[in-house]
């Protein structure tokens, strides 16, 4: 069965510092991978996605993520965090099999200190 692990429940960084949110997935074939962000009381917005090709993908708001098949990871990074980046971040995995289910991790809550 497919699954996603986000080992960090909460992360606090200072504004202007770099950020890396971890995501490990389990899927039997080549996965489709996503990062979503959720601001308080809001729905989910897509940050970026990986389907194939270049393993370093760029997203909105200055975020990027790198797919590492050997480590089953898809970590999200940002070189300089802004106070408006405070939110909850979700990693998700899908694929061609399994009825096209989209499975999410438990999320990482990001706090930004000014």
């Amino acid at each position, binding site marked *: 069965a497919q699954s996603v692990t986000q080992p960090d429940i909460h992360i606090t960084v200072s504004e202007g510092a770099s950020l890396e949110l971890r995501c490990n997935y389990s899927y039997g074939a080549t996965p489709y991978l996503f990062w979503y962000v959720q601001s308080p009381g809001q*729905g*989910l917005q897509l940050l970026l996605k990986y389907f194939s090709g270049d393993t370093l993908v760029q997203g909105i708001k200055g975020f990027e993520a790198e797919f590492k098949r050997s480590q089953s990871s898809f970590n999200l990074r940002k070189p300089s965090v802004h106070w408006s980046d405070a939110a909850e971040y979700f990693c998700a995995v899908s694929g061609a099999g399994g*009825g096209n289910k989209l499975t999410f991790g438990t999320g990482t809550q990001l706090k930004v200190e000014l």
Partner: protein
Amino acid sequence: DAGITQSPRHKVTETGTPVTLRCHQTENHRYMYWYRQDPGHGLRLIHYSYGVKDTDKGEVSDGYSVSRSKTEDFLLTLESATSSQTSVYFCAIRQVMNTEAFFGQGTRLTVV
């Protein structure tokens, strides 16, 4: 923004009563999903649909049923609501497998 609407947005109901949540899309997307979101659990898949009258269970389907009689509507029913079903419910739509999902604004359901 993707054309996806959830109704109602908020609902308070009593234990043991039936409840139906509606997800309506105007995008003609094939796939539709129902998730529940609870603190510490992220989004957990309840049921999903890959076409009209084609549905399947997710990881937390007990106590829930779904129906999809037309492409644009995906209904989630709690046959007899329990307090453990108090949650925020999100609907999502997806065109094909290698595209992202778009989410509705959520329905906050409280079972008292």
